[in-house]
């Protein structure tokens, strides 16, 4: 279990990005974090990853405090961040430097197969499309079999079709080993498709505002009426978190509001 206990972060310039954020996330749970810009959701993710230390409060994974990057925690960024001088296969194997070579090769080959890029094994990253590159990044993060995988707006730079493909693909990969997924996103649709639970954050300073359980079976139908209902309640909660007037629920939900910025 991943436990966040009153995690706060104040930057040296005095800006408080995160104030007393507490949550408990079960092993294997998929949690989406959503909120207005400046609500500290990326700060929170970086604290869980051990990339930036919290000013106060603790992050513990299975009772072990996290203060630096940890072998059980993987992260996928908004950009693929592949190493341009390594082939696709070597990029995927980047986190496996310690094991024996044959075992490493096998794991990489299996991962390549799994993300559907076996024929690209020897390609350079520059030869990949945006969606392919992000799939390599996902494979790279999953190959060391982390217990927790953090995703920082992983699909926001992709076009709508590729984004859907990758969301489905991510769930497919998740089912293999069922790591805990913590996903920061701007996209309400994405949060409701992927998450068991959506955490809504409120900005200045960033803190937890609301939690919405998504009690939908999988695979989820993006066009089901129930799916729309969950999207609507996440959107309403978001509006409330920004102290916006929430108008009459039924009158205002056009398709253009599915993407929430």
């Amino acid at each position, binding site marked *: 279990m991943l436990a966040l206990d009153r995690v706060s972060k104040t930057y040296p310039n005095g800006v408080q990005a995160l104030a007393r954020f507490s949550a408990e996330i079960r092993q294997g749970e998929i949690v989406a974090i959503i909120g207005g810009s400046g609500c500290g959701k990326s700060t929170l993710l970086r604290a869980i990853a051990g*990339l930036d230390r919290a000013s106060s409060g603790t992050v513990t994974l299975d009772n072990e405090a996290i203060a630096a990057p940890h072998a059980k925690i993987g992260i996928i960024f908004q950009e693929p961040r592949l*190493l*341009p001088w390594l082939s696709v296969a070597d990029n995927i194997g*980047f986190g496996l430097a310690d094991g024996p070579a044959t075992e490493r090769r096998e794991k990489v080959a299996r991962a390549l197969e799994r993300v559907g890029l076996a024929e690209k094994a020897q390609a350079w990253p*520059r030869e990949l499309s945006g969606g392919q590159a992000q799939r390599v990044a996902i494979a790279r993060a999953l190959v060391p079999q982390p217990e927790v995988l953090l995703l920082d707006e992983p699909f926001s730079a992709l076009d709508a079709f590729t984004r859907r*493909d990758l969301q489905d693909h991510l769930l497919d990969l998740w089912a293999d080993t069922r790591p805990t997924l913590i996903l920061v996103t701007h996209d309400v649709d994405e949060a409701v498709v992927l998450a068991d639970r959506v955490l809504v954050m409120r900005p200045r300073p960033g803190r937890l505002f609301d939690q919405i359980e998504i009690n939908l079976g999988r695979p989820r139908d993006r066009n089901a009426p129930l799916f729309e209902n969950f999207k609507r309640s996440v959107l309403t909660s978001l509006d409330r978190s920004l102290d916006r007037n929430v108008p009459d629920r039924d009158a205002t939900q056009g398709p253009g509001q599915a993407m929430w910025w």
Partner: protein
Amino acid sequence: MISDARVLQQTTEPAESAAAPSWLSRYGRPLLGVLLPLTLALGWEFLVWRGWSNGRLVPPPSRVFATIVDLARSGELVRHIAATLWRVGLGFAFGVVAGTLLGAISGYWSLARRLLDPTVQALRAIPSLAWVPLFILWLGIFETSKIALIAVGVFFPVYLGVMGAILIVDRKIVEVGRTFRLSGPAMIRRILLPAVLPAYVVSLRVGLGLGWMFVVAAELIGASEGLGYLLLDGQQLGKPAQILAAIVIFAILGKLTDGLIEIAAAPFLRWQDAFGRTTGA
């Protein structure tokens, strides 16, 4: 996945048509660059041959070539080339080692940069030839002062290149190394070194160019052998053909050694997604 496949098709089609360029564009383009100097040389040769000019101060190519052949036959040429190559090689080696070490320290460690860099930049502002009298006083008139001068010329571009390259390594890629918990040495070997390599190769090539420049200066000051000595000897004895011969050999050697660096570095830089690759230059 369907969208990916479509994108792939679109990008491979134009690549295929570009992979088989016409014979003319493949061999014609480099030849185009040779056209102007070749025409000028042949034109001058023709003018002298017709007797319209005596070619005494500007000897025609045939006479320059004959001088080179004469020098080669007597064994002089090999001796001069060897002396110059030895000086450039040694000066380049010292300059590269010092520039790489100090550049890496300044780039990696910000305290060292604050301590070291202002001094290095101040020294860089001094025209390097201004060191010549001092080096001769300190190190004598023979090889040591020459090699020191060349090393100074090579040092600065290499130092700047290494430091600058380390400073602009993408923080996001360093973070990837951090998330996989690379140790300090592993971070240098697996992230920093490959990331700075392209800029490093450029700085080596600039440094080598300056090395060739400074070897001429060093040999003009006082030498009994070397291509720079051939230049000076040609001036003092009024042999322009010998001067031109030395210049031609300088050009050939400079180009060859630069090409060596390029060839040696090429296998490590195949991954680059650079402008030069797409334009086929």
